[in-house]
């Protein structure tokens, strides 16, 4: 019977039902779109941040070392105090080279590195170090280099050179030539796509810099910085310094690594990350605020249109009361009505919001969007929130109707 009542009341008053429905759809779709985008932005940003998989960057200090680090020092990284927290590291040696392939000549950067080097350090467990461990997000088509004259080429460089897997690239640096076989094309989304990655030893020969390394990326397990971690180690008491040193702050690990690499300066990359993190936070709270505002607005729209239809329906409600409906029965009818509208509204709102999010992210952020699964329940729930927040006042109005006054005569 409840169902019949609802069905008939919907069919009888399509206009006011439609009005409520549209308000709910608006609220749900705006909430879906905004939350979806903000989720996607967080996701994108998080990916971006993860591409700094290495969180410590070792560079030659300007003062000493002549601009290079020594490859011989690298194994020492596995012997430092925080050795178990260092999950991986990889050295790089950069140089500008003239590449030629398929008759095209292009200028680019040749980068020597470890891909997956078996590192044996006396007194320590053997481990595998290199790009493959520290940059798992690199998307390599083809394979990783195994021999000394194999290389992987960044996607952008490969495009310029028109080289493909299996082809060859000739690199020339100050008259010295080296022929690489291309075994893979790498896509990283970053500056690496402009480079050619070759084994470190070959690159050192090519650049005539034996035993040298330009920089080392270190990835370490660290604890989040807190107020104590931010303190300047130079101004700490001995006791504080002890504690700082034996806490895995990114700064203390960096310092630890710096100590064993002669002529190096360690920079924690978290500074960039935390700046982006706070930007992200602000953006997210802005999105949340807008979402809440949109929801409040549509709840008010729902409330207004329900109020209007309540005025229209007051004889009906008065009659129901007169023939013996109590407050629960009256509420059941109106809540049931709202429930149905909001379930359908939530679904439609989800579909619309998803499209809206796609459009926004295409036009504003210039990226496509993959809608996450949790958006669906979010849409339904926001539809419910809008519907129920909007129907509180009308329902109270309905319950306060006095049959005697309305049914006069």
């Amino acid at each position: 019977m409840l169902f019949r009542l609802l069905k008939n009341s919907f069919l009888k008053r399509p206009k006011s039902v439609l009005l409520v429905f549209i308000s709910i759809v608006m609220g749900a779709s705006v909430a879906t779109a905004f939350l979806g985008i903000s989720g996607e932005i967080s996701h994108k940003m998080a990916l971006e941040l993860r591409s700094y998989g290495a969180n410590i960057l070792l560079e030659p200090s300007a003062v000493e070392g002549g601009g290079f680090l020594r490859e011989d020092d690298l194994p020492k990284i596995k012997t430092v105090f925080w050795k178990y927290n260092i999950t991986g590291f990889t050295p790089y040696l950069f140089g500008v080279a003239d590449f030629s392939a398929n008759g095209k000549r292009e200028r680019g950067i040749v980068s020597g590195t470890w891909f997956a080097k078996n590192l044996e350090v006396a007194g320590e467990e053997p481990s595998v170090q290199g790009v493959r461990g520290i940059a798992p997000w690199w998307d390599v088509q083809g394979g990783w280099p195994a021999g000394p004259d194999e290389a992987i080429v960044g996607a952008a460089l490969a495009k310029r050179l028109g080289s493909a897997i299996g082809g060859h690239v000739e690199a020339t640096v100050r008259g010295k030539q080296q022929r690489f076989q291309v075994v893979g094309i790498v896509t990283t989304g970053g500056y690496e796509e402009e480079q050619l990655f070759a084994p470190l030893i070959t690159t050192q020969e090519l650049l005539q810099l034996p035993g040298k390394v330009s920089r080392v990326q270190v990835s370490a397990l660290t604890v989040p910085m807190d107020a104590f971690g931010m303190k300047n180690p130079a101004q700490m008491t001995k006791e504080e310094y002890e504690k700082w040193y034996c806490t895995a702050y990114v700064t203390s690990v960096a310092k630890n690594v710096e100590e064993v690499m002669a002529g190096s300066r360690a920079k924690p990359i978290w500074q960039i990350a935390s700046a982006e993190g706070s930007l992200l936070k602000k953006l997210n709270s802005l999105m949340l605020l807008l979402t809440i505002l949109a929801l409040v607005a549509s709840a008010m729209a729902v409330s207004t249109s329900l109020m209007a239809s309540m005025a229209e329906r007051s004889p009906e409600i008065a009659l129901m009361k007169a023939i013996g409906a109590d407050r629960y029965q009256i509420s059941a009818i109106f809540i049931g009505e709202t429930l149905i509208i909001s379930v359908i509204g939530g679904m439609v709102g989800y579909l619309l919001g998803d499209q809206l999010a796609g459009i926004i992210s295409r036009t504003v952020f210039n990226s496509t969007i993959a809608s996450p699964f949790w958006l669906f329940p979010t849409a339904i729930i926001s539809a419910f929130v809008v519907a129920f927040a909007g129907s509180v006042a009308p329902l109270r109005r309905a319950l306060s109707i006095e049959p005697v006054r309305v049914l006069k005569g």
Partner: protein
Amino acid sequence: MSPYIIETGGLTRSYGDICALKPLDLQVPEGEWLSVMGHSGSGKSTLMNLVGGLDRPTGGTLQVGGENLLALTEDGLARFRRNFVGIIFQQHHLVPYLTAIENVMMAQYFHSMPDEAEARHALERVGLGHRLKNRPGELSGGEQQRVCIARAIINSPKLLLGDEPTGNLDHKSTIMVMELLKELRGEERFTVIMVTHNQDVAAWGDRTIHLDDGMLVREERMNCQ
């Protein structure tokens, strides 16, 4: 057990300064057909609303079917109405978007649960077996009033209240409705209180009371017609 289904003592109802019902003592024995007459504004509708649990008195005592209506909560009054009272309005007050049978079933729904067969039977009893699926707009005044009667008696009330049930009907329909009510009363044995200003309609009852300005001014007893 009191022999009276309705007992009031000093019953009053005032709206602000206006006193719609002056202290009224009234007893209605079970099974009686009571007609209430008076000009408009004489308090007859107020009396009916009070007795039917649609309104609350401002003073006095009011016992209906052994229930002290002054002590009931709002939901308690609603339960009292659905179990005990059937109401027929002058304006019918049918839900416009429900069919005749659905209007009857709605009363069943609020009372306990709908039962379509029983609702159909009730409409057949009031002679509307052929108009079950029609909406109120498609029915004549007399037919609408008969739906209203079917709805009022569907839950077997002890008390049937009529607020000028024939006020909008022509003479022929009036006779038809009154005959129907009399017949149903014979079968169901409910008490009837009927507000009217039509002497002929009032004459269908066992007893007539006249109200004026909220006071009982005259009482007359009919003999069987």
